């Protein structure tokens, strides 16, 4: 159930309860007072009746000139007075009983007197007046009982008064009051409802904003409107949306580069495979294969297979570098450099390229195999970029907190355009030249990954036609990344 309905119903119930309680209380108090008033007037009637009886008896005494009337006289006086009950006030009936409960006077419809529930003469004292109210035939009657004495006789007087009107007006008041309270309760609740709706309107706005974001529109933001609390909530929603948007973009970028990597990889695999498959197939199905054809086809098959081999091993290296545990040791660069020099000498001398090794005394905390691979790949790149008779310089240096390894060549160089992308996997500046040299475009991405694992940095300067300088700086303390 919506909040505004909850508020409306709850407030309606509470207001109605409050109004009802108030109203009922007031009504009851009013009724109490009315009944009390009726009781008082009944008691007054009884008192008046009693004193009238005394007066009448006294008068008879005086008129007869006696000091005491006989009981016969008293009884007849009582009878007469009872019959004359209406002259003492508003009563429906009067019943006079002596000590023994015998009726000594009655007036009006004495059936109405509810004597059963009232005390007998023996229990009544002169100052009491007991009352009881009961309903007979659709009307309410108050019976008041009190006592008086006449010449030694104790008489109980029970007067009956019609108090229906009190109750009727009570009922009318009740009806009227109920209507008024209902109306006011509903009016107030409606007002409350309207105010609530207005105050809560910002919730709908927020809800819509949240819905938009949840639905995938991560760029949408909640408007800062409404009361202070709502502005705060909206602000926080926006912060959250920002974070979600950033994460989504980050993940999209990651997914995109993964896809690109896979696409490039597939392409690099399929290209040599095409020649291998097709030439191999031709060798198989052709009836006559000339010597020239045999040599040509098989040469390409072998060349392309070697290329695939280089590609798959480089790829494996790249993959394992990303996930491998580094085995850190203190590496003496001079030693490492001379190892590498011996390894590359055959390739370099075949093309008349000289390697100059400079610097000494630097050490480095790193994984020896990876660092060796790093330097080897840089030299390999330099060699591929250089023409016959070229020159490569491999140097080491150190600053306060870094060890620097630099590889410089005077080869073909790269433009700024190329430089931007040169560490991307499979990127080759000149595809045909690279492929001829057996490359797959993975060397520098491998170097970049090794440098990253060691917490270092790689920077490349190059001028087309003049050469390239690659500088790798690695921390020589424990800052290498695990």
């Amino acid at each position, binding site marked *: 159930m919506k909040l505004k309905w909850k508020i409306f119903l709850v407030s309606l119930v509470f207001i109605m309860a409050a109004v009802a309680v108030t109203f009922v209380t007031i009504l009851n108090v009013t009724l109490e007072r009315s009944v009390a008033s009726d009781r008082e007037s009944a008691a007054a009637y009884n008192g008046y009746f009693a004193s009238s009886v005394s007066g009448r008896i006294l008068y008879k005494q005086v008129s007869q000139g006696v000091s005491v009337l006989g009981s016969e006289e008293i009884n007849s006086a009582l009878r007469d007075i009872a019959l004359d009950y209406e002259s003492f006030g508003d009563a429906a009936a009067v019943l006079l009983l002596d000590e023994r409960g015998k009726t000594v006077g009655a007036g009006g419809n004495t059936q109405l007197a509810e004597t059963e529930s009232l005390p007998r003469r023996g229990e009544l004292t002169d100052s009491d007046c007991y009352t009881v109210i009961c309903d007979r035939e659709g009307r309410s009657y108050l019976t008041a009982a009190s006592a008086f004495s006449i010449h030694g006789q104790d008489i109980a007087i029970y007067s009956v008064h019609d108090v229906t009107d009190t109750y009727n007006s009570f009922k009318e008041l009740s009806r009227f009051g109920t209507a008024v309270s209902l109306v006011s309760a509903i009016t107030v609740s409606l007002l409350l409802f309207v105010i609530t709706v207005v105050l809560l309107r910002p919730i709908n706005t927020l809800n819509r904003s949240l819905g938009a974001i949840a639905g995938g529109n991560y760029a949408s933001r909640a408007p800062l409107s409404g009361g202070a609390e709502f502005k705060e909530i909206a602000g926080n929603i926006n912060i959250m949306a920002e974070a979600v948007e950033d994460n989504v973009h980050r993940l999209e970028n990651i997914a995109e580069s993964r896809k690109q990597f896979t696409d490039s990889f597939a392409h690099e695999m399929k290209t040599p495979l*095409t020649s291998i498959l097709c030439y191999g197939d031709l060798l198989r199905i052709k009836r006559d294969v000339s010597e020239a054809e045999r040599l040509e086809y098989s040469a390409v098959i072998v060349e392309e297979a070697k290329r695939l081999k280089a590609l798959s091993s480089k790829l494996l290296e790249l993959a394992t570098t990303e996930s491998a545990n580094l085995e850190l040791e203190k590496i003496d660069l001079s030693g490492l450099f001379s190892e590498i020099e011996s390894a590359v000498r055959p390739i370099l001398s075949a093309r008349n390229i000289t390697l100059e090794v400079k610097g000494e005394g630097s050490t480095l905390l790193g994984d020896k195999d990876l660092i060796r691979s790093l330097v080897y790949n840089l030299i390999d790149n330099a060699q591929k970029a250089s023409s016959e008779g070229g020159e490569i310089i491999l140097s080491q240096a150190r600053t306060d907190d870094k060890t620097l390894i630099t590889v410089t060549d005077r080869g073909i160089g790269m433009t700024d355009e190329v430089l931007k992308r040169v560490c991307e996997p499979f990127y080759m500046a000149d595809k045909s030249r690279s492929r001829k040299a057996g490359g797959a475009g993975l060397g520098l991405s491998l170097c970049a990954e090794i440098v990253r694992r060691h917490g270092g940095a790689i920077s490349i300067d190059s001028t087309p036609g003049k050469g390239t300088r690659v500088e790798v700086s690695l921390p020589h303390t424990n800052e290498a990344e695990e």
Partner: protein
Amino acid sequence: MTKILIVEDDENIAGTIKATLTMVGYTTEICYNGAEAVEVILGGQWDLVLLDVMLPGLDGFGVMEKIRSTEIPVIFLTAMQNVLDKVNGLRLGAEDYIVKPFEALELLARIEVVLRRKNKLSSVIKYGDITVDTEGYTVKKGESTVALTPKEFQSLMLFLSNIDVAVTRERLLSTVWGYDFEGESRTVDIHIQQLRKKLGLHKHLVTIPKLGYRLNRYEEL
């Protein structure tokens, strides 16, 4: 003489395509980039262009747009399996596509389908005293007409397009029976027997052990 232009930047792939096409008698030339290809196509008479999608500079799609007016049939070559490339190419008017890597006869089969569709193949093929009318779907040995089932006819066509080239059972099955055929290659063998019998090709349509069959170039035997 059917002239086919190969547009492919990888030298080795270009070479292998050329070798394949030459084997069955097409005349070929190679262009290594898109711009050059456009010039060559517009400036010559070509029956078909094999066009690589990934070219340096102007890519395959760019080339196709520029040569649209010539209405030369184009089959494009792609290493990527992605649907977008294929749809793009076919929308631009290519007849078909081939995914690398491919077998020699796969390439030839697709080329043949396109050429036949465009009526670039001669409608009558002769082999010794056998004459095949590819439009009328009739075969004659000497003067008399020979009745061949549709599969036998297609098999014969495949052999005639690949003289001196071994056709594997797999290639026969996929070309003549379609890729979904679940049957054994015994079906193929039986068909070949029938073909030999009906056309007297026992000495020319030879079995290559472990490989398949080959129709040798015609010699009086």
